């Protein structure tokens, strides 16, 4: 069968009498399963079949995290309380939403545990991310103003970081209970040596209190309720550009998307032969293993 029929001029090859533009919506949906969410949203404007398929539940069900019902319930609860971000049109997110709407909502962050923690999924593949504020962690001596203070800053997702002036015993402990979609995750402490501040529109970094980090390393630890464990240690030091750094504590694996896992993580520098100080503790981040955040919005300082 030659292609001599009503073929349209095209850049690649001959199309014969029908082209892929004539694919029924069900076929397009089958193709979209092989694309990532941002690509799916991009091809929605090709034609009506693509637009319909790009909103089909059967496509988005495959993109949502395995435990999306659990995550969506948290989002709906947060929106009800008026604490979470509703969607752009100001509509309250409800569990009656389409799978695509659920995916879109989960890409926006949701606060939980009295606003001290938040989660979101990554647009490109739906990987789950969590951030735990310094305010949700137990910091030894946090109430003693000789040692610790809270700095308001837009460089933190939570708009506030804990700043250490000077202490002998540095210990920051945190805990999280959550249902993770099955997979591997990495946990980090988000830290900054030096005190960021602004003067005349410029971002500066006060290093007057920075000391004691090069004597012995700072220890980081992570344990899970199913007995996984990871430790690491680093000598903290000033960045040339005075920026935030993610200190990798370790990784953990979740095998069951429906079972909550309990994580305990800590950062310690308790060598009491010397004091240490000049440290900002923003938060703990949990990312899908292998994900490298670039300048991640407000949490990264402008250079």
């Amino acid at each position, binding site marked *: *069968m030659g*292609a001599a029929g009503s073929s*349209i001029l*095209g*850049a*690649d*090859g*001959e*199309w*014969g*009498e*029908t*082209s*892929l*533009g*004539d*694919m*029924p919506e*069900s*076929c397009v949906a*089958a*193709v*979209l*399963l*092989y*694309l990532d*969410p*941002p*690509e*799916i*949203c*991009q*091809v*929605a*404007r*090709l*034609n*009506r079949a*693509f*637009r319909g398929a*790009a*909103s089909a539940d059967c496509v988005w069900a495959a993109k949502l995290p395995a435990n999306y019902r659990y995550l969506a319930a948290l989002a709906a609860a947060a929106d009800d309380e008026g604490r979470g971000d509703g*969607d*752009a049109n100001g509509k309250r997110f409800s569990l009656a939403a389409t799978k695509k709407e659920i995916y*879109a909502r989960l*890409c926006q962050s949701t606060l939980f545990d009295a606003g001290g923690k938040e989660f979101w999924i990554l*647009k490109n593949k739906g990987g789950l991310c969590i951030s735990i504020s310094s305010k949700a962690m137990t910091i030894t001596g946090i109430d003693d103003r000789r040692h610790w203070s809270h700095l308001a800053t837009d460089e933190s997702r939570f708009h506030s970081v804990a700043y250490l002036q000077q202490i002998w015993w540095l210990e920051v402990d945190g805990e999280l209970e959550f249902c993770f979609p099955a997979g591997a995750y990495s946990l980090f402490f988000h830290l900054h040596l030096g005190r960021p501040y602004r003067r005349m529109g410029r971002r500066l970094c006060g290093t007057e209190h920075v000391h004691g980090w090069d004597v012995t390393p700072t220890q980081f630890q992570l344990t899970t309720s199913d007995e996984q464990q990871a430790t690491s240690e680093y000598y903290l030091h000033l960045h040339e550009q005075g920026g935030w750094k993610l200190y990798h504590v370790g990784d953990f694996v979740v095998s069951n998307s429906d079972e909550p896992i309990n994580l305990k993580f800590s950062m310690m520098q308790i060598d009491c032969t010397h004091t240490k100080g000049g440290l900002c503790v923003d938060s703990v981040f949990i990312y899908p293993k292998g994900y490298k955040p670039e300048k991640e919005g407000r949490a990264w300082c402008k250079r």
Partner: protein
Amino acid sequence: MAAAADSSGDGGTSSGEKTIVLVSSDNSARFEVREAAALLSQTVRRMIDEAGADASGDGITLPDVDAKTLAKVLEYCNKHAPASSSSSAAEAAPPAEGEEDLERFDREFVRVDMGTLYSLVTAASYLKIEGLLNLTCQTIADMIKGKTPEQIRKTLGITSEFTPEEEDEVRRENAWAF
């Protein structure tokens, strides 16, 4: 074109294995294939179950698949069919050919013009042949990845029937992803 075309070339019936006759939509072609190959199609499987044991005598007519497409589809099925159609649990029922050989075959198989690709994906969807549907969908998806909508339109031959209002609506519906 009324030839019996079993393109595996090893004479399916001579091994004593059951064969099935599939007929294209325009009744112009009849293909006799090994049962194992034909059953890769869930649709054919269902038609046989519903029609009973004597259905394959007359041949099974596939109203939505023309002769040229059916020939190509059966080329795929013959290559990917398990060595034996027995569905005993003892056999993992792997295809008779090696893994690498199949991958090479698949790559060549989808080097076709857009019209044929269109016929293959719609046939695979109608016939419910999982492997072929995955292969054709992945091929089309690879043509889409990394391209702007304008480039995709040219490559796949898609014209938009949207009004400017519809275009705006679609843009708004999907803005969250960018």
